[in-house]
């Protein structure tokens, strides 16, 4: 006997999407002087709104507003007062949580249960956490002096959460910000601008400029920006590192990944399978730390694969606003094309492709949860970040081989270990060259927990006391 799910759509009546949006500069919404662009719902291809594009001159105006706010207001305010603004923001995010979650799912395509249970509460928690640091900076180890104006460029996979990761520590440390959300997901950042108004945040402390790569480049290259914080692809991160070379700008980069999720033969298999599914299909695999390479010990490979396939067959792909949906829409046609291209390469290189039977909606951008078997380390699907719901399965025999394979990548953001043996967990955790290691769990995030990569996954840490380092003068990066 099987139980069917009835549709359980979350109402979108709670959100009020305007026809067009301007830039948020100096506490007000203003027109942009670039060419406005459209943001669409990736699940339906419906145009949601027109969004202003910030030109170089607009970015300059935002930086000037941020500079004024920094020197006249924000850096002079006591930490205790800054803290209260941040606590206010945290509370408003909590109060308007449902609205933000629905808007995030509409603009991004992620399932409502993820935006509701992960993105929004974690974003609020980041503001709550860093609020408490604002008047305790002398205990941080990085001094109490802010850098000035932070230019921040964030990706489309966790739009509001990445905004929170960037803005909360910057403001707590006394900096002001000019932030650019991704061009395909600007709406929650613009809602956040409204929240800043609601919180009576002094004008210019937070400025939101929308646009694509050129706008981001204008922020990064602006001579009066003291600090650049970027989350996104390694390619763009490299370009940013080159742009700031020879300047005094401080930089943190949180870039790509190709994490190994390593399953030993003594692992609790059902839990490991849940961890594998969470590792690669959470947020449609649009996760820089996704466990996109499954390394499974040869002796249990067949069993793990069989159970993994059975579990993948129960994943519900579809309407992001349906509360039962596990896997939502691919964020953009560009990203869908990138996933399809690499999947075709995987097939052409001889790996075995498998997806559970699933009906995909006729409209919108979709890709079914997919795995590849028979993948070798030389395959592009084992080396390149796909940033989609595609898992490459490799096998190993010994822990040493698992470590070698796991570390055989220019990336080093995260890794997963599944085993019941404690000493092996600790040995593996020591050996893996990755900034975050999840043992018998995966994709866990917390504002107190530093996050960031080794090698070409970037530098600097976000979260925790370490996250303040990037925003205080006595920090190093």
């Amino acid at each position, binding site marked *: 006997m099987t139980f069917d799910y009835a549709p359980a759509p979350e109402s979108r009546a709670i959100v009020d999407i305007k026809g067009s949006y301007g830039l948020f500069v100096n506490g007000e919404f203003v027109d942009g002087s670039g060419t406005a662009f459209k943001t669409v719902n990736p699940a339906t291809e419906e145009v949601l709104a027109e969004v202003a594009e910030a030109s170089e001159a607009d970015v300059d105006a935002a930086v000037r507003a941020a500079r004024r706010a920094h020197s006249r207001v924000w850096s002079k305010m006591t930490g205790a007062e800054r803290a209260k603004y941040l606590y206010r923001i945290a509370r408003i995010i909590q109060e308007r949580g449902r609205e933000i979650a629905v808007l995030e799912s509409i603009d991004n395509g992620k399932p409502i249960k993820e935006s509701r249970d992960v993105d929004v509460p974690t974003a609020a*928690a980041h503001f709550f956490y860093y609020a408490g640091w604002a008047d305790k900076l002398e205990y941080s180890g990085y001094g109490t002096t802010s850098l000035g104006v932070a230019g921040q460029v964030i990706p489309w996979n966790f739009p509001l959460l990445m905004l929170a990761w960037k803005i909360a520590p910057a403001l707590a440390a006394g900096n002001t910000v000019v932030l650019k959300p991704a061009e395909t997901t600007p709406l929650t950042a613009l809602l956040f601008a409204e929240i800043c108004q609601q919180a009576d945040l002094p004008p210019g402390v937070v400025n939101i400029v929308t646009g694509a790569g050129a706008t981001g480049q204008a922020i990064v290259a602006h001579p009066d920006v003291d600090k650049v914080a970027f989350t996104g692809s390694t390619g763009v991160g490299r370009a940013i590192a*080159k742009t700031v070379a020879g300047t005094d700008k401080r930089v943190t980069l949180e870039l790509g990944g190709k994490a190994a999720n390593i399953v030993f033969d003594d692992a609790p298999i059902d839990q490991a399978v849940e961890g594998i599914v969470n590792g690669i299909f959470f947020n449609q695999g649009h996760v820089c730390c996704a466990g996109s390479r499954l390394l499974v010990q040869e002796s249990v490979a067949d069993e793990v694969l069989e159970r993994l396939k059975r579990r993948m067959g129960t994943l519900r792909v579809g309407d992001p606003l349906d509360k039962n949906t596990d896997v939502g829409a691919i964020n953009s046609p560009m990203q869908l094309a990138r996933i399809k291209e690499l999947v075709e390469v995987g097939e052409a290189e001889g790996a075995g492709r498998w997806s559970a039977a699933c009906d995909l909606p006729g409209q919108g951008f979709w890709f079914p949860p997919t795995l590849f078997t028979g993948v070798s380390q030389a395959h592009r699907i084992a080396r390149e970040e796909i940033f989609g719901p595609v898992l490459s399965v490799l096998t190993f025999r010994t822990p040493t081989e698992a470590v070698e394979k796991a570390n055989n990548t220019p990336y080093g953001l995260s890794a997963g270990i599944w085993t019941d043996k404690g000493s092996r967990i600790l040995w593996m955790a020591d050996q893996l060259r990755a900034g975050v290691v999840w043992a018998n769990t995966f994709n*866990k995030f917390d504002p107190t927990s530093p996050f960031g990569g080794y090698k070409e996954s970037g*530098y600097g840490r976000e979260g925790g006391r370490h996250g303040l380092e990037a925003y205080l003068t006595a920090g*190093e990066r």
Partner: protein
Amino acid sequence: MATKTTTPTGSARLDVRKTYKLYIGGAFPRSESGHSYVVNDAKGKFLANAALASRKDARDAVQAARKAFPGWSGRTAYNRAQIVYRIAEVMEDRRPQFVDAVRVSEGLNAARAGRVVDEAIDRLVWYAGWADKVTQVVGGANPVAGPFFNLSTPEPTGVVAVLAPQESSLLGLVSVVAPVIVTGNTAVVCSSADRPLPAVTFAEVLATSDVPGGVVNILTGTVGNTAPWLASHMDVNAIDLTGAAGDPEHAARLEEAAAENLKRVRRAPAAEPDWSLDPGTGRLTNFLEVKTVWHPVGL
């Protein structure tokens, strides 16, 4: 450092001059290029010929440093502390030699050169002690909102290229090398171009101080010859541009090359710092990566 002495019978004895070579993988090779260059003292008088390191030497040094990294970073912090302390002991033992080298290289009087050597030895002792303390200062437990054990610990970044200062040939050198290796990194060091002799003597100390071969590799010669290859080398994880102080254009080009594999870059200061000041922990933490490990808590 040629000196004339007389034999007990009063006849002049020809001194035996030292050949100054590179230090790579625990050995003292000449430059594979076969090139050397003239090193003068502070007054412009000939001191010695030193090996002029080439691109190939730089690459060999990176290979040696990479090979040494797993073993060195895998040692206990206590053991690394003892070895760095041992470097200080051996330097103290050879103090007159270092005083002489600093005196002629930097044009200081003997008393001032002596103080510089003392500071260099004391700095090594200071950094030695950091080996097993930096982890607690930088890392810690994180109180996440859930049933998880969550711990952040610093780890060495990997192979670090170090452009040692041009002016301070010993104290500056020690001040940039010690913080890199004491935490478990391995280093490829470009010595001061005009004042390389203390660096070669320092290499001889390293070779006799239980520092495994390859942990520190020292290249003498011009920064222009080796630094661009180190900055662009895909198996170097970080670069310290201190030795490019005062040449912002060169430093910018090196930083740009370093971006290719997202090297951690310590930028060059506008001018060479005063090495006698309290160094702080910046040079230690520059070349550390924070790793955070999660594990569920439950019955």
